[in-house]
């Protein structure tokens, strides 16, 4: 019987070898071009960029693994933890890069970047986000900024001046935003004022403009009443029927683009990628009762003298365990360069660095109304709170916190104390 157990054990030990033998071989050729494995998610702009790179480079070819955007973050982290063959990747939730860096999966790029190169320019444009512990963690290819997108037809129907007019008069404050949202809400016309989407970012605009980090990279907690004010604005607008309730958007799986495509939403606060979605929305016949020339772009409302927006750039990283780091760097630096920027701009995407050529190309996809392109490309301060190693956990906490507030579980006078306690809990346990 003992022999049988020994035999059983030996077979057991050999079985995985037999099963997995032959599955781990890596195909490579010393002659042809270097092929790099690149991970990204499905987005209208990503594939054309990769195709363009492959078409113009003989020595490096990108083998793209395009994952579904839902749960991309969790998949990417799992793949990295499993050290799956990956030379470079695009980050979807930017704050994840800190954990990846601490885990040693991100290659610092300080020694790769040449002073004055396009990659250097892109990094410098978002230096506060890209440099951590003195290391350059990646290269931005897409800019990051939130804007107000507005449907001029809704404004015209309701007889309300466009936001650009309020900006010119120095009146575009958050109070004015609430006032305009309510004025745009007309049940007879079937119009609704505004949409601030369900994401945690939607609670941080005023904190960004007050230059409060909420939690910085070192775990220091610093916020003021801007967070509460943002929640109050959402609650007031939901109560007035001027904004689709957050919980309704969530449980119906309503995408912000669909709300805007419907043609009865006055204003949408969302990121710099939205012009691209308007282009594809019009191409696919999704716009209801208006065209891509009927919308405008302007600044976020702001109560401060100096205008600040919020938004993290979208970055590419080289994997630390890649065997093709030079080639991977070559690709991601190309993504930040003028050729890729021109392609991205043609798709309505704001590149990390906007050159005159980009400005020219973007003018084809940005409404030509004399102000939208200027607001889209103007020099502005970008401050993104909650940008650090605690960012992902804080975002998740805010998701639940804002729902609790909007559903009346947290009174105004307890918001700051409870928020502080939750942040302290995150710092203590992460």
């Amino acid at each position, binding site marked *: 019987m003992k022999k049988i157990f020994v035999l059983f054990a030996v077979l057991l030990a050999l079985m995985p070898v037999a*099963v997995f033998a032959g599955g781990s071989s890596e195909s490579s050729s010393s002659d042809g071009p270097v092929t790099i494995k690149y991970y990204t998610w499905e987005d209208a702009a990503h594939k054309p960029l990769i195709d363009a790179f492959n078409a113009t480079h003989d020595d490096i070819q990108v083998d793209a693994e395009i994952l579904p955007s839902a749960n991309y973050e*969790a998949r990417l982290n799992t793949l990295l*933890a499993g050290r799956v063959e990956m030379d470079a990747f695009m980050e979807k939730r930017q704050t994840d890069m800190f*954990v990846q860096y601490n*885990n040693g999966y991100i290659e610092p790029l300080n020694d790769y970047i040449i002073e004055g190169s396009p990659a250097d320019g892109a990094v410098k444009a978002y230096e506060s986000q890209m440099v951590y512990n003195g290391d350059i963690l990646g290269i931005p290819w897409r800019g990051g900024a939130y804007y107000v997108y507005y449907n001029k037809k809704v404004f015209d129907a309701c007889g309300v001046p466009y936001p650009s007019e309020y900006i010119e008069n120095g009146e575009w404050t958050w109070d004015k935003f609430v006032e305009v949202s309510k004025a745009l809400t*007309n049940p007879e016309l079937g119009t*609704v004022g505004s949409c601030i989407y369900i994401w945690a970012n939607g609670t941080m605009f005023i904190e960004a403009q007050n230059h409060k980090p909420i939690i910085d990279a070192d775990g220091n907690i610093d916020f003021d009443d801007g967070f509460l004010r943002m929640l109050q604005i959402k609650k007031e607008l939901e109560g007035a029927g*001027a904004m689709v309730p957050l919980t309704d958007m969530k449980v119906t799986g309503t995408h912000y683009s669909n709300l805007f495509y419907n043609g009865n939403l006055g204003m949408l606060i969302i990121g710099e990628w939205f012009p691209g979605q308007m282009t594809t929305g019009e191409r696919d016949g999704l716009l209801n009762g208006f065209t891509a020339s009927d919308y405008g772009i302007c600044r976020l409302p702001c109560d401060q003298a100096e205008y600040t927006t919020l938004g993290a750039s979208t970055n590419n990283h080289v994997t630390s365990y890649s065997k093709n780091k030079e080639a991977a760097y070559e690709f991601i630096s190309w993504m930040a360069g003028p050729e890729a920027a021109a392609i991205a701009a043609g798709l309505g995407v704001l590149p990390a660095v906007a050159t005159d050529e980009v400005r020219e190309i973007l003018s084809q996809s940005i409404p030509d109304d004399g102000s939208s392109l200027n607001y889209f490309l103007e020099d502005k301060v970008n401050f993104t709170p909650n940008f650090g190693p605690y960012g992902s956990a804080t975002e998740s906490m805010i998701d*639940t916190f804002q729902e609790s507030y909007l559903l009346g579980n947290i009174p105004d006078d307890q918001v700051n104390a409870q928020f502080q306690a939750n942040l302290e809990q995150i710092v203590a346990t992460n």
Partner: protein
Amino acid sequence: MATIKTAQLGKKPINWVKWVTILSFLLPSFVGFVVFVLAPMIWSVFLSFTNYRGGPNYKFIGVENYVNAFSDPNFWSYLWITAKYMVITVVFQIVLGLAFAILLQHQFKGCGFFRGVYYLPNILASVAVGIAFMTMFRPVSEAAGAPNGGIINAFLISMGLEPSQFLAGQETALTVIIIVSIWQNFGYYMVLFIGSLQNVNTSLYEAADMDGAGWWKKFTTVTIPGISPILFYGITIAIIRGFQMFDYVYVMTGGQFGGGPAGSTNVLAFDIYKMFTQSRYGYASAEAVILMVIILALTVIQQEGQKKWVVYDVV
């Protein structure tokens, strides 16, 4: 030589052909069990004592993850929601499964159709079921541009009743999920019980009739003991499934954006997923181990308790 020795000792020689045949059947599934169940389970227990976040630089932190979990009010809230979900779904799935099994155990015209209809939801993917019910239970929003309310609210309004927030309401979202879960799963228990009911010895009912037993008396003294092994199995499986619930919460109440309104549907398995997405693998493992211990403890308690009510020797 070994054969001679064993023969001299009066033992039968080992039949290698027989054992190799047995092992060749057992080994593949056993390897699958070790690789995909046992090893990850042991690894999870190990990780639960570390601050593992997906990288090689992790360290042993003792029971800190457990202390963090037990000192976090959210953890207790998620456990309470899980328990509520489990108790209600187990009771209704078992009771409805048994009731429909009693109704459909006999052969009559159309019984096959009805059995199929009630069992059908169980073979559907829960993600598809979740999406379908999410549409049906859509809330009615007063804001223009919001998606139209679902068919259930349309029905309520047509009956002159107030529409409900359903999945968007923190008081109602879990109830909707429980209803969907019961709807999809009670058919499975019904089929189990039908098979068991048909094996109950009919002479026992005849004997009970002769003793003047009524319907209820026969049900409690013949039917329940007769099907008690399968009933026990059904309850055990339903409890385990109840604690593992994840998919409806993910699909129907907001997925990666935090689950039900203000966390009202966040069961423990969903929090494990959330921690996983934040790369807090150590903490997520601790929660998974706690969940496993709870399920194990309940299973052991049931195993002990079944001695008092499960009858294996009914003729």
